[in-house]
């Protein structure tokens, strides 16, 4: 597989030149690194300025040879993050949508319907409307639809990102089964190192459109540079923000999140409106049920608890406060404060707990 492409994006240009021979290749990097754009370029949904894309000896795109196959002829099973199931069709009609395709070269995989349905355990969903299935089920249906379209390559865009923690663990085995049963090459986009380690045999790490590292997942993920990156990825709360003011004497700056929420962060030089990303650990946020007074923390944000997910003595709260904040608490804290979905809370975040990425 050869990927060499250059295409301009909004903030930077994607410039990748890699070739690899692996079953499952993870494209790994923080959000906004250009991962999805890369998949779209491979699928033919995004125009490439310059480059070559070759898969299993088939040239899909080549600017030097003036080849640009249409998405229709690329024989690529693309599963986008939002699954994009056809809302007007039943699950069965969705998964059979691409089944009629016979193009795609000699070794285009044709998997029997029964086998795919059985493997992904979607038999009971076939006659349902797409609106009546859950997020995890949608992912499996979208995967089935792509598999049945005789693809030569599967592109999976963060298939687990929109799922709850519990569901993620249930989907990974399905992905492994697809990998082992069908032997079809996959490119798997993710920002989660655990997914890389549990599925991929090659990883390509990109950041702001550039290749940062590539290799065997265990080696790449353990290298020093990547570890510091991983630490950033451990931040459960990452927000895009712009700088709104700096106070060097006071040692703090203020930023505005996309929702308009203001946040104090440690002093940060730079011009007003400079874009940056702020990360906050779920462990570093305190929760109060009354407005706190006389405290040192710089940020007190009012919000509504949307969801409480419990696991092994701890709980993850999702609090809606313009943006979604994730907060990790012990189980006992939940009980003491009698927290429940729909309740109003105050989030207390120390200025110094806001990390600029």
């Amino acid at each position, binding site marked *: 597989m050869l990927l060499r492409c250059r295409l301009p994006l909004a903030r930077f240009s994607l410039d990748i030149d890699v070739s690899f021979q692996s079953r499952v290749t993870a494209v790994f990097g923080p959000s906004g690194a250009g991962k999805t754009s890369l998949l779209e370029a491979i699928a033919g949904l995004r125009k490439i300025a310059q480059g070559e894309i070759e898969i299993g000896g088939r040239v899909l795109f080549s600017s030097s040879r003036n080849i640009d196959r249409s998405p*229709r002829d690329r*024989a690529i099973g693309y599963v986008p993050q939002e699954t*994009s199931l056809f809302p007007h069709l039943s699950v069965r009609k969705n998964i059979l*949508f691409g089944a009629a*395709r016979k193009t*795609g070269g000699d070794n285009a995989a044709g998997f029997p319907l029964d086998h795919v349905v059985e493997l992904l355990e979607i038999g009971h969903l076939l006659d349902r409307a797409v609106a009546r299935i859950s997020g995890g089920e949608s992912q499996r249906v979208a995967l089935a*639809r792509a598999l049945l379209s005789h693809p030569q390559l599967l592109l999976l865009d963060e298939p687990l990102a929109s799922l709850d923690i519990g569901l993620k663990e249930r989907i990974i085995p399905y992905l492994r089964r697809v990998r082992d049963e069908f032997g079809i090459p996959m490119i798997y986009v993710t920002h989660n190192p655990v997914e890389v380690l549990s599925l991929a045999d090659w990883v390509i790490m990109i950041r702001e459109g550039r290749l940062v590292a590539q290799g065997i997942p265990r080696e790449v993920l353990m290298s020093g540079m990547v570890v510091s990156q991983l630490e950033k990825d451990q931040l459960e709360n990452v927000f895009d923000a712009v700088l709104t003011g700096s106070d060097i004497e006071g040692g703090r700056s203020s930023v505005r999140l996309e929702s308009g929420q203001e946040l104090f962060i440690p002093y940060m030089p730079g011009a007003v409106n400079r874009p940056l990303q702020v990360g906050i650990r779920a462990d570093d946020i305190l929760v109060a049920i009354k407005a706190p007074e006389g405290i040192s923390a710089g940020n007190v944000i009012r919000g509504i608890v949307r969801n409480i997910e419990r696991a092994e003595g701890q709980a993850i709260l999702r609090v809606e406060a313009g943006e979604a904040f994730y907060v990790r608490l012990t189980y006992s804290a939940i009980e003491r404060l009698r927290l429940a979905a729909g309740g109003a809370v105050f989030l207390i975040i120390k200025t110094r707990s806001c990390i600029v990425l």
Partner: protein
Amino acid sequence: MIVETFVMLPLVMPPVATGLILLKIFGRRSPVGRWLYDLGVEVLFNWKGVLLAMAAMSFPLLVRSARTAFAEVNPRLEQIAATLGAGRSRIFFAVTLPLAWRGIVSGCLLAYSRALGEFGATIMVAGNIPGKTQTLSLAIFSFVQLGKDTEAFGLLLITIALAFAAVALSERLARSRAKV
């Protein structure tokens, strides 16, 4: 762009003016009218004229809603259909059209309601000949003119019923589309 503006014109022009234009275009002295006449088709002052006037007046409404309906279809779904091997016509008939059809039907209903109330253009192009080109609206006008209020009132009730049904159906379609 020019064609679009031209199609939209009846929406903003006085209906009588639109009627006059149609009259000039399809009149026997114009090239179009003469050509039709030679083919044995006469459109003015008969039911075809009524149809012509109503179509010209309500078509812009249909075009507008249909265009909105098509624009609301998520282009991502069309892209994904392409990666699944669907060609242009399959994408259109299997994805775009089914997702837009509610909007198109509700546009048809809107156009139908507009046609029901059409008066100015019809009277110019088809006249007001009882039993031949007299529409519901024209008949109400005639009855009132002749002082036959009871008859006019009867027709009024029919008009209200038809309009109510059209609007109710169109609202229902719009609402069920919002759910998707």
